[in-house]
């Protein structure tokens, strides 16, 4: 422990006092609202207007609506929507990794003197507003848009295709396009931190470049891969706007769309809140993993 000055130990409350306003804010506007979801999901519903009546006391919680909605996962349409969401997010995350890894690897290892230029180029999409990027693809994918024009010109397709008419591949492509930049940055950071001499050592000991990559670089970047995947999967699970903009059909509906639908319709808020709770259950493992790995990294940075 570095020199703990006397003045420090005397002022035990200085640092908590600094943290207090921010923490109070987060308690009131993050934790309390979080609890509100539960209170609404476990609350009662007005039988006539279908409006929610939140119950704040957990002892009086009524699992009626919650059970009803949860049951729909196994018996009704909701199960299909959950499965579809998992499938879209799974495929889109894997594709993102396949695209993102080589790019992050190249910028971290082989960009040489132009590293700053490449960094600017991979940071730019990160900071282009998401809705702007989706708008760009809506324009390109219109029936008379550039994508159909190019594909027609190349002779790939005789007929222009209705890309925005509820196609899974369009939605998955949109998710990949939307979230790859967020995967590349943590990957880059992890690859950039790898000590070059470890790879040099493997090469000196006779490993081929490929084997050196497989046995040194890849395992050392595992943390970055996992962190990157989690960081894009969490928002993807709650995404509804990519879907709405790139597919004008309920055929591709995801969990997020279901939540948006109910919360925005002045009725059925209890249902919307319940689906939100179920979504949280789905992503809880991912969140826990990330929290603990960040906490560990913070501890290491502090030492």
């Amino acid at each position: 422990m570095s020199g703990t000055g006397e003045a420090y130990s005397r002022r035990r409350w200085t640092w908590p006092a600094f943290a207090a306003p921010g923490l109070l804010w987060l308690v009131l506007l993050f934790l309390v609202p979080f609890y509100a979801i539960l209170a609404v999901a476990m609350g009662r519903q007005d039988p006539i207007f279908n409006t929610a009546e939140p119950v704040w006391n957990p002892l009086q919680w009524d699992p009626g609506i919650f059970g009803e909605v949860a049951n729909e996962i196994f018996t009704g349409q909701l199960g299909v929507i959950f499965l579809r969401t998992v499938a879209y997010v799974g495929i889109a995350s894997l594709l993102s990794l396949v695209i993102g890894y080589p790019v992050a690897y190249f910028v971290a290892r082989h960009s040489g003197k132009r590293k700053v230029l490449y960094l600017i180029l991979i940071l730019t999409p990160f900071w282009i507003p998401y809705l702007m990027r989706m708008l760009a693809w809506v324009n390109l994918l219109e029936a008379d848009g550039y994508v159909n024009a190019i594909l027609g010109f190349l002779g790939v397709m005789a007929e222009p295709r209705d890309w925005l008419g509820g196609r899974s591949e369009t939605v998955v492509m949109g998710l990949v396009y939307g979230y790859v930049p967020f995967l590349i940055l943590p990957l880059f950071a992890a690859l950039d931190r790898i000590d070059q001499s470890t790879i040099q050592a493997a090469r000196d000991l006779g490993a081929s470049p490929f084997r050196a990559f497989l046995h040194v670089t890849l395992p050392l970047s595992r943390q970055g891969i996992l962190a990157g995947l989690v960081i894009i999967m969490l928002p993807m699970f709650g995404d509804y706007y990519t879907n709405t903009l790139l597919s004008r059909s309920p055929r591709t509906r995801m969990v997020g769309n279901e939540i948006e639908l109910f919360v925005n319709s002045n009725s059925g808020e209890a249902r919307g809140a319940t689906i939100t709770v179920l979504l949280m259950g789905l992503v809880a493992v991912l969140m826990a993993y990330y929290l603990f790995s960040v906490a560990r990294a913070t501890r290491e940075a502090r030492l």
Partner: protein
Amino acid sequence: MSVDVAQPPESVEAPTAWRRVRSWIANPWGRPRFLTVVTWLYIIWCIIPVLIAVQFGFNDGRSRTAWQGFSLRWYFDDPDLSVWNDPSLREALLQSVKLAVGTMLVATPLGVTLAIGLARWKGRAAKPANFLMLFPLITPEIVMGVSLFLVFIYFFQVVDLGTTAQLLGHITFTISYVVIVVRSRLFAIGPEYEEAAMDLGASPTQALRMILLPMLAPAIWASLAIAFAISIDDFVISYFLRGEASTETIPTRLYSGLRLAPSPALNALASLLLAFSMLAITSAALFLRRLRRREGRRGSAVEDLAHLDI
């Protein structure tokens, strides 16, 4: 990159363009070359669609798919439909800027003090406090949107949906980003400087004001800019907490407009959003560069931005 292998003689280095092309043809799948191609394809794929979208904001006609010549029609000239003259677009622009400025001004002081507190506080409650700070970063935004929406309807009923609710929501998820930016600097500085000041008789407030804050200043400026960028880019929170029509922001206006009545004016509006975002993030990079210069570190501030992984 330091490679200890013997360097080839000078004459072989400095390859002419032709020699490069020839070796390229001889072995197009050599590892770095393949990666170069993948990286450039990725960059083109990422950026060109956006540039095309910006271009169509300047289209002379109504089409968003066929170029009909350059004009500022969708920005100013059109008497009804341009960003300047369509009240719904103009209000969205105003609302976005209003929220971003408000968020920046409130979230930054809250985040800076929280970062200082969390970085120096070693008590038992510090750990859960740290977790609480991290949570907003990883909670899917839709969950935060729903939770804030419900809490303003059923619990904090004094706050109506609309500007105030949106502002409170934006501040809530921006605080943590500010903490991340400032905290990495705090770890780098370490507690030694303040401790030295206090050993020499400064009170904690004096040590903070005269030692720590000046050292943190560029990071604080950078986090102001980042808070602005994060707020103006936000869609989900603004969407769930919007009230009457005048509280639509640029992203929510794009969302409804794209579905109901797409027009190049939306491209123009989106381009303005892009300009704000780029301006904010460039100034963040410039502040971080000043920080690097002052500390005599080599390299570019862009690397600091790239390493801000949450």
